[in-house]
């Protein structure tokens, strides 16, 4: 007769310790293992040189740059508006958020960042939060798939598809949205967009609960993530981590709360933080962030000035002919509008000399733009502070001591995207 029997499974930290202890010192040379740049678990073109002692990693040297396109050089050779499509291709899992970040940085340089029309601010917040959900969904789906839970990927991709539909309805493109303009957005949202967002939120809540059931208390998932790659508070700050990776280590820092921009001041949301700083905490933080994004979206669709259909004709662009394009009707009939249109398209807006830095809370962390202007329509220097690049720099410190099979878990929990890292 079969009986229930207890079996003892040590936790992953103890397994590591055992594995290291059991290695005889005289085994011989270490092995160098090249992982990537084209490896399913590196999500893009990250290459890591691993030095192994048996199955334990003794040294890791991440090698980035395989997707370097020279975006900063390109930016110096075009007007501010012309660079917006290039921001789609930074973090290509959240192009809407990049558009918002870049537009806000240029607006700060122009000095109009606090004069944006309220409707525009709400639209941008909704875009940024949809992008956050979309990026976290992909990160989570791929992460779970690398750990062996393939079902999650199917669930999260179904939901991402709906976000792409929303992006398409608003901007006309699914991936390369280029939705924002300096001083506003390309066009107002379509009349039924808010209802579509409501519908999405309703369905997404169900899907997220399903993912939660599949993962959060799943024994295999918890065993593989808990106590792995612990980042202490000091280490997180020292390495300049940002976004969920910083908050996973228990630091309550979110640019939306600490340096509020757009209309985040008027919205209610919480900042989730982890307690230990291991992979499991980073996973939990991302899950909770998606729920908070849902809360923000819920409030936005109810509070958006002008309502869903904009019956009161709220503007979505700054009313300054030297910054945003005038209405087409005016260009065809009025002298001044025609001149503005011509000057904006050929020379761009005139950004006064000076330098600004603007950091935006992107899904992966703080996406910052440092703009140095010497006047005129072209930046003298545009530096992109990409969160993935900086988050990856900690790998060399994080990986030694872990095992080869932990590499996909650590990479999944750091959640990077190479398009942004390499620029």
């Amino acid at each position, binding site marked *: 007769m079969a009986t229930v029997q207890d079996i003892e499974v040590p936790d992953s930290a103890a397994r590591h310790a055992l594995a290291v202890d059991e290695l005889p010192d005289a085994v011989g040379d270490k092995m160098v293992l090249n992982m990537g740049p084209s490896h399913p678990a590196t999500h893009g073109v990250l290459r890591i040189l691993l030095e192994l002692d048996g199955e334990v990693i003794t040294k890791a040297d991440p090698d980035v740059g395989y997707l370097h396109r020279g975006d900063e050089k390109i930016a110096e050779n075009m007007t501010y508006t012309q660079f917006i499509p290039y921001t789609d291709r930074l973090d290509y899992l959240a192009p809407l958020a990049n558009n918002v970040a870049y537009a806000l940085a240029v607006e700060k340089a122009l000095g109009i960042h606090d004069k944006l029309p309220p409707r525009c601010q709400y639209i941008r917040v909704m875009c940024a939060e949809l992008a956050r959900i979309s990026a976290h969904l992909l990160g989570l789906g791929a992460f779970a798939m690398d750990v062996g839970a393939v079902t999650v990927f199917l669930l999260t991709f179904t939901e991402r598809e709906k976000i792409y539909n929303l992006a398409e309805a608003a901007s006309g493109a699914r991936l390369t949205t280029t939705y924002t303009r300096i001083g506003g957005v390309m066009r107002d949202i379509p009349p039924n967009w808010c209802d579509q967002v409501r519908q999405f939120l309703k369905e997404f809540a169900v899907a997220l609960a399903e993912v939660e059931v599949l993962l959060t208390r799943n024994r295999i998932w918890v065993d593989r993530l808990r106590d792995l790659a612990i980042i202490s508070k000091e280490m997180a700050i*020292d390495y300049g981590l940002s976004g969920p990776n910083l908050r996973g280590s228990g630091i309550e820092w979110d640019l939306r709360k*600490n340096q509020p921009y757009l209309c985040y001041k008027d919205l209610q949301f919480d900042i989730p933080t982890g307690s230990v700083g291991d992979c499991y905490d980073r996973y939990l933080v991302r899950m909770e962030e998606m729920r908070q994004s849902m809360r923000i979206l819920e409030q936005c669709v109810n509070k958006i000035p002008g309502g869903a259909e904009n019956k009161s004709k709220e503007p979505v662009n700054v009313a300054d002919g030297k910054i945003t394009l005038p209405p087409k009707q005016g260009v065809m009939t009025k002298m001044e509008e025609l001149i503005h249109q011509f000057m904006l398209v050929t020379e761009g807006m005139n950004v006064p000399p000076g330098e600004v830095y603007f950091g935006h809370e992107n899904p992966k962390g703080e996406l910052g733009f440092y703009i140095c202007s010497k006047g005129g329509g072209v930046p003298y*220097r545009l530096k992109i502070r990409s969160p993935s690049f900086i988050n990856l720099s900690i790998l060399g410190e994080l990986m030694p001591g872990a095992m080869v099979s932990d590499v996909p878990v650590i990479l999944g929990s750091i959640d990077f995207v190479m398009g942004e890292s390499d620029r």
Partner: protein
Amino acid sequence: MTSLETAQKLKAKFGDLISEPTEFRGEISVKISDAEQIVAVCEFCKKQLGFDYLVDVSSLDNYGDDPRWTVVYELRGLESGCELRLKTDVSEEKSELPSVIGVWRTVNWHEREIYDMMGIRFRGHPDLRRILMWEGYPYFPLRKDFPLAGKPSDIPGVAFSKPAPLEGGPFVTVSGAKSATAREPRIRNPEE
């Protein structure tokens, strides 16, 4: 303590080394006149003024001006929420300044990137290699005298010394050449 007060404290400590703080769009910048002192200034900023978080390091090429390089550090205190921008100039002949890796470890990749893109060296950096471009690449592409289209190179295997792999291939359209159907490899007649 506001950002401006921290800048004034820095000025009080180091005197003439630090310029008067300037403000633009609510951001405070100070200039350090001697790049060799950058480590001491950063150390003070972190330990005494609470700037524990280094946001970003960028570099400027003031092409045609002397000194040619400017290195820009964006500092932040997570406790206080203060932000401060430190700037320091480096001349072209020297193109070198001390690394601040002993203050913030995050600067490791930032300094490698600046070396890679601008060619400014950081003394004391443990691993100053190229990071975005590959080892052996002969130029520093973010310099203002480097053309947007790139440069040819004599060194084999690097930087545009060979035609791109697709050039002349079946999927590249050249004006005056055969149509795409005729260029399709599967229908090509080897006896032609």
